[in-house]
């Protein structure tokens, strides 16, 4: 195991930010910690790389106790923080060199590695201009490049694509997949369920400091809900009348006026809704069931709402 947490808790005063979390991350995988803001994801990560000390429980990374071997562990870990931290007055190349020195890299290795990362993240056209002139997407790529300067065995990404536009997200996802393909283990947090579904081999869903479910994304969906989802607007009091003459599906969830129904074959229900609502006032959507639905079924709230 690359990361092992054994009933780890972290309290700030009365509040348990992380509550009895037990977790194992196997090497070579991309592991996702999912959950809304405030679920305890970032605190969990900080404990894994050793800057936050758990109130109780034990953590081993690469088989080493993080409480006593922080420097050793961090030499083999790369971390991209939620907030992009760069030196704005310096160029991407200089930023990478400064960061490489934190790992005690020396020339010529330092510059060679910086060049490699500039190429890998396609930052070549901007390599020598001050970082403050770069767009948010470029800065984020550079921040991730920075955390790879020591060629880590474990890459930790705290919400890597929050606030980025779709094209940049796609580009970053493909880089992350390439890294995994070359053997880097990846541990990421996200509150985007689509991100987790595309990138992660395994996910753990966190809510209010606890891990409430864990498994491969497809497994999680399969074990809890049917594969197809039909969603449309329908007030609670109309629900019975609206669905009266079709067989009642097993899984139903609701967020406010939005009703979601999960079933093996959505065709009949979708046709029924279209027939009752020909002008689509109820904004009917038929789609595959995703992790967002799993989260909803587990917590009874939707991600945006819990934030």
């Amino acid at each position, binding site marked *: 195991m690359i990361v092992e947490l054994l009933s780890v808790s972290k309290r700030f005063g009365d509040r348990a930010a992380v509550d009895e979390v037990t977790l194992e991350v196997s090497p070579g995988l991309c592991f996702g910690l999912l959950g809304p803001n405030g679920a305890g994801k970032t605190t969990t990560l900080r404990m894994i790389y050793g800057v*936050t000390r758990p109130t109780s429980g034990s953590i081993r990374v690469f088989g080493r106790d993080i409480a006593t071997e922080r420097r050793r562990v961090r030499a083999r870990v*790369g971390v991209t923080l939620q907030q992009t*931290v760069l030196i704005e007055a310096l160029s991407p190349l200089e930023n990478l060199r*400064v960061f490489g*020195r*934190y*790992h005690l890299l020396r020339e010529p290795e330092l510059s060679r590695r910086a060049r490699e990362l500039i190429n890998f993240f396609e930052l070549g056209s901007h390599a020598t201009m001050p970082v403050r002139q770069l767009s948010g997407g470029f800065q984020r790529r550079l921040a991730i490049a920075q955390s790879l300067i*020591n060629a880590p065995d474990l890459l930790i990404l705290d919400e890597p694509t929050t606030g980025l536009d779709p094209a940049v997200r796609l580009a970053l996802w493909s880089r992350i997949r390439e890294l995994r393909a070359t053997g880097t283990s990846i541990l990421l947090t996200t509150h985007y369920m689509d991100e987790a579904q595309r990138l992660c081999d395994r996910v753990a869903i966190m809510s209010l400091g606890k891990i409430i479910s864990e498994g491969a994304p497809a497994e999680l969906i399969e074990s809890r809900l049917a594969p197809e989802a039909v969603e449309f607007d329908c007030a609670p009091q109309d629900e019975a009348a609206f669905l009266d003459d079709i067989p009642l599906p097993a899984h139903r969830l609701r967020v406010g006026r939005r009703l979601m129904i999960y079933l093996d074959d959505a065709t009949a229900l979708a046709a029924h809704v279209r027939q009752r609502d020909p002008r689509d006032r109820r904004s009917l959507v038929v789609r595959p069931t995703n992790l967002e639905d799993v989260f909803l079924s587990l917590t009874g709230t939707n991600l945006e709402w819990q934030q």
Partner: protein
Amino acid sequence: MSISLPHALAVWRRNAAMYRRTWWLNILPNFFEPVLYLAAIGIGVGGYISQMGGMSYLQFLAPGLLCVAAMNGASFEVTYNIFVRLTFEKSYDAMLTTPIEPDDVLVGEVLWAITRSCIYGGCFFVVIGLWGLVPRPAALLALPLIPLTGLLFAAFGVAFTLRIPNIDLFSFYFTLFLTPLFLFSDIFFPLKDRLSGAWLWVAEVLPLLHPVRMVRAAFAGDASLVLLWDLVYILALSILLLAWARRSIRRRLTS
């Protein structure tokens, strides 16, 4: 966990890399500031003073202002700059994802502040040398006192910076702490001519007084036992403040 000097130097090099970008912008004011003080107070005010402490007023001012240059060089670095890195830029959070530990951050920053005090103080020394205000070779002994002054004020500044919740409080540090020190630490007039017995003892608490007395002694070319007390004061207080800062930085960066 113990301090790792190579990691502390990596922190130092981060600041040096930024400073190198704009060194010519930063270093010019270092030359102008002492010239302005010496011109306005040394020549302007000094024109009305025939002599002070047995020498011309310009000669009297030079050693004290050398310590002020060292104090300012360190102070700006460990106040605003550290606060910004800590709170807004989150630079230390990024460092702590690498093998760097909070203690290394503290040592690196203090070393950098001492470096800045050497740049400031060094520039000042060159100016007064060219002005003919360095009277004898023994005055070169003042040079190692520049980083010593830098250490003391780096320690004060960093201890304060790590404790305050918002950036506005620095105006207290500068106007209620550094400015009074600047005005009452034997720089503009000899304290012993103005204060009577018991008050002279009280004045010994003023931190800037001690480097000023040492630099003055170097410029005058005479040594006395009181300088040992000055040295002990500076080192002991620096160590005490840094020990306190060490606790604070651990608490601020790891929780």
